[in-house]
């Protein structure tokens, strides 16, 4: 069968996946998918705070892909409407949810990302809050579309430390994955 879609469906079900997005991400897709996700979380009866945390992590992850994925759709050079490719997966985990995102990154950027992630992973909620507040009053890099707060925000919404990995793809790129768990 084409794409072995049934296998894919079964696998996703087996891994408790309730939401999967893979492909080019534009800001418009974030808006659309965010509305869908909100509805889904309502049906899940996740509870307000849990649903809001899942939604928040998801939005930050999608925007991270849009801002930082090394895989761009060519021909759209204009900085504001280019597409970048990545994957976001949401699933059930014990008493809550996991939210995963992945995208290609340049190998040169790995050590900087690792430093940021390790710093965040070593912090408790109070320290994360203090770091978040400190960073939001700092000037951000002029070339950056974001505020550099996304990873801290994800860690604050998570109920376990952020997990991450870099899987080498070739001499230039690796596949970067972030995993956030939000408990109920």
């Amino acid at each position, binding site marked *: 069968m084409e794409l072995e879609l049934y296998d894919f469906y079964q696998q996703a079900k087996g891994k408790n996946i309730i939401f999967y997005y893979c492909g080019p991400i534009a800001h418009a897709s974030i808006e659309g998918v965010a509305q869908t996700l909100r509805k889904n979380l309502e049906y899940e009866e996740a509870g307000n705070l849990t649903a809001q945390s899942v939604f928040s992590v998801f939005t930050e992850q999608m925007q991270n892909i849009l801002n930082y994925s090394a895989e761009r759709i060519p021909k759209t050079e204009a900085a504001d409407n280019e597409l970048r490719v990545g994957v976001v997966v949401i699933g059930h985990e014990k008493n809550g949810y996991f939210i995963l995102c992945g995208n290609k990154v340049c190998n040169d950027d790995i050590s900087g990302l690792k430093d940021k992630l390790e710093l965040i992973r070593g912090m408790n909620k109070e320290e994360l809050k203090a770091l978040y507040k400190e960073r939001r009053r700092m000037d951000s890099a002029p070339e950056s579309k*974001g*505020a550099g707060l996304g990873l801290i*925000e994800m860690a604050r919404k998570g109920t376990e430390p952020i997990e991450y990995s870099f899987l080498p793809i070739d001499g230039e790129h690796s596949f970067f994955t972030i995993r956030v768990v939000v408990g109920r």
Partner: protein
Amino acid sequence: MQALSIANTQSTPSIYFDQAANVMIMKGESFPENAAKFYAPAMEWLQEYLSTLGTEKAVMQFEIIYFNSSTSKIFMTILDMLQAEVEKGKNISVLWLCDAENETAIECGEEFKEDLNCLSFEIVLV
């Protein structure tokens, strides 16, 4: 000075800044693609407004359902701008409106409040 009026979208709030009424309102969702760019007209308007504002009472009202981290930075910048004017003797206050069931919005309001001292910042449950 002309009022600034921007309609909301799925990811950006409506903005209504009115000098005549000394009222500035932002209402809706805020996760724009580029927060700095989206809020640039509002910041520009605000700067000009604050430079002409006397000691009459002015109110900024936020009613934001969800906002992302880059918006948070813009809001902090706006609040710091307002606070700097209060330090100069101006009469500006902030209302942070949120749904009583929106725990995240309430908490976010509290976190802004914690970082301000002389700017009046009131969380109002609606």
